[in-house]
């Protein structure tokens, strides 16, 4: 498991073979292979799954929104916390997006994006501050804010809803347009993913998130700024959910008070399937992103494979369980290997 983060260096192996070995043993490879197999079988059964314009677009578009939320959830889970309020944040910012266009005619697109991300970040800041300063478990706090944010959302929306006609055409175009055949939403999501992955892998503050998640007490004793980092993780998660909310409005056009309902569990599920350990300190946002793609691709593939899509959630459940059992097996093996190594060097 930890092998994906700090691969054990074998003396005398070339850079190329090391790379091959790393890819072959990476936790994300398994889930990526599963995703490719699903796409392969669905395409064999029905070539339009991949090879029609709509098929290809749907394959990329729908998971892109969940990807953003899943990346945020992965960052929070890596610090050994959890954010149950992201679905509610998506709903609130999606409605805010519509309201901004209605209430401020002619508002520039960038203003709407900034508004959504700021609101999401602010809601994340509330989560993070409560978790970090009041020393209350994130599960409890975000369970509470999940109710509060969703309640505010429903109270604000009422029976009202945003319709596609309320949104300017160039904003709606964002949800459907493509550059070089790739949907703009997917490009935005992938850029965010690359930035997050680079940050977690290369920057000191990113590495500290792993240290905090592995052992919060040790990280504190070592002098890491645990409070600041944990708040930062929640703000990031909230801001990404906010961005997903803005894009939700662009993608679907209609926003009711139920937007983003249940996304928190999907995002956590995506992260867990992608190898982010719920006990903190382990995993990558790449894994969470592939998990998000797998979750939603299965949903579309099942009917094509001749299975009612009612069974999607059961398949997702099996996937989550399979992923955590695999994690456990790998962790036990790693543990045994380390003990064996220690015996040898003695």
């Amino acid at each position: 498991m930890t092998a994906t983060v700090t691969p054990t260096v074998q003396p005398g192996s070339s850079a190329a073979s090391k790379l091959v070995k790393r890819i072959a043993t990476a936790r994300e490879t398994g889930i990526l292979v599963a995703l490719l197999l699903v796409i392969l079988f669905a395409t064999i059964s029905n070539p339009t799954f991949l090879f029609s314009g709509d098929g290809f677009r749907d394959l990329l578009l729908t998971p892109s929104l969940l990807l953003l939320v899943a990346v945020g959830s992965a960052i929070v889970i890596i610090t050994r916390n959890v954010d149950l309020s992201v679905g509610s944040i998506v709903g609130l910012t999606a409605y805010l997006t519509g309201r901004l266009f209605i209430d401020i005619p002619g508002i520039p697109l960038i203003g709407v994006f900034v508004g959504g991300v700021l609101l999401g970040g602010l809601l994340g800041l509330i989560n993070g501050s409560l978790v970090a300063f009041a020393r209350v478990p994130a599960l409890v706090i975000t369970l509470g804010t999940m109710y509060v944010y969703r309640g505010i959302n429903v109270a604000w929306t009422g029976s009202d809803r945003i319709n596609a006609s309320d949104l300017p055409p160039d904003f709606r175009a964002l949800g459907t347009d493509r550059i070089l055949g790739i949907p703009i939403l997917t490009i935005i999501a992938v850029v965010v993913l690359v930035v997050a992955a680079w940050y977690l892998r290369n920057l000191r503050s990113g590495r500290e998130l792993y240290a905090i998640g592995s052992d919060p007490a040790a990280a504190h004793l070592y002098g890491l700024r645990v409070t600041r980092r944990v708040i930062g993780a929640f703000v990031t998660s909230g801001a990404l959910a906010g961005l997903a909310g803005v894009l939700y409005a662009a993608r679907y056009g209609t926003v009711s008070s139920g937007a983003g309902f249940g996304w928190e569990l999907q995002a956590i599920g995506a992260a867990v399937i992608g190898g982010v350990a719920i006990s903190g300190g382990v995993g990558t946002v790449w894994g969470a992103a592939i998990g998000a793609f797998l979750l939603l691709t299965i949903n579309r593939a099942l009917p094509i494979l001749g299975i009612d899509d009612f069974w999607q959630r059961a398949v997702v459940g099996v996937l989550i369980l399979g992923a955590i059992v695999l994690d456990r097996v790998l962790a036990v093996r790693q543990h045994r290997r380390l003990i064996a190594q220690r015996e040898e060097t003695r």
Partner: protein
Amino acid sequence: MTALTDAAPARTYKAHAKPAWRRVLLTRESAIIAILILVIVVALATVRNFDSPLTVTYLLRDIAPILLIALPMTLIIITEEIDLSVASIVGLSSVMTGILTQAGVPFPLAALVAVLVGTIAGAFNGFLITVVGLPSLAVTIGTLALFRGIAVGLLGTTAITEFPEEWTDLAKANLPGTPIPMIMIPFVVLAIIFAVVLHFTPFGRSLYAIGLSKEAAAFSGIDVGRTKFLLFVVSGAVSGFAGVYFTLLYSNARGDNAMGMELQVIAAVLLGGVSIFGGRGALHGVIAGVLLIGTLGSALRLASVSSDIINVITGLLLIVSVVSSSLLAWLQVRRASAIGKRKGRADASSDPS
């Protein structure tokens, strides 16, 4: 010097000792019960129709599944675990009840099988958590999706609404001459059993021990794995029973029954003073917590406050209650250390040696 160190702990103890009535009244559980009574009194005085027997009946009927499931959930959270799959088990049990009844199986047998399915689902959770050794949060997020998926997969979007009338009538019936629904009988029986087991048996004490320190509990001879396995099995069985009741009450078996109820149960348990870190909590607090959420919701609905505001209040209640208790603990530590320092100075000045 020796005389001083002997005397000091006794004096410190005396400084912190509170009269028994203050210790009882200042617990988390008493606070929740006090708030519950306050809400009831205010609602009786200000909300029209809150005092009608029908309000009581509907309130108790609707929160009965949450009351039931909160009992095993309390025990599970005290051992520092969690069960997110309970509402999915309710849905699965509801679907099993419906399918078997539709297939012509006599209702009592169908209900029994549904409870059994819930028990097996709980055992599956328990197996993955205790035998395979996985974290319960991750396992039950997985089985939350799995059990719900099986329930939805079996029935699709169809719903089964035909149930023997004598049984649906029983689920809706009240105790003769009172506005209290019959479902309160099994609940009270279960609550007494759970309370006695948790608070008056070595097994109950071992749950607190496990929650405080799994390792220490194991060293003192508690079979941690078997204990936790048992709790998840019981949680599955009670959720299965709640599923049968849910089906009868609304004469409706659907795959998405009781969706999201796991979070309501957990919110109520935490509100009732059970620590998510394990090792702390009491059943009377939890029951008061469920009743508080239910009563508040019912009173606000009667006062035609929208259900969204009720959600906001539920969430705020949960946050304020946990934040305030952690704040109180922090203040207590600070005060204790301040007293300690003062005492240290006083002792030092009186005894310069």
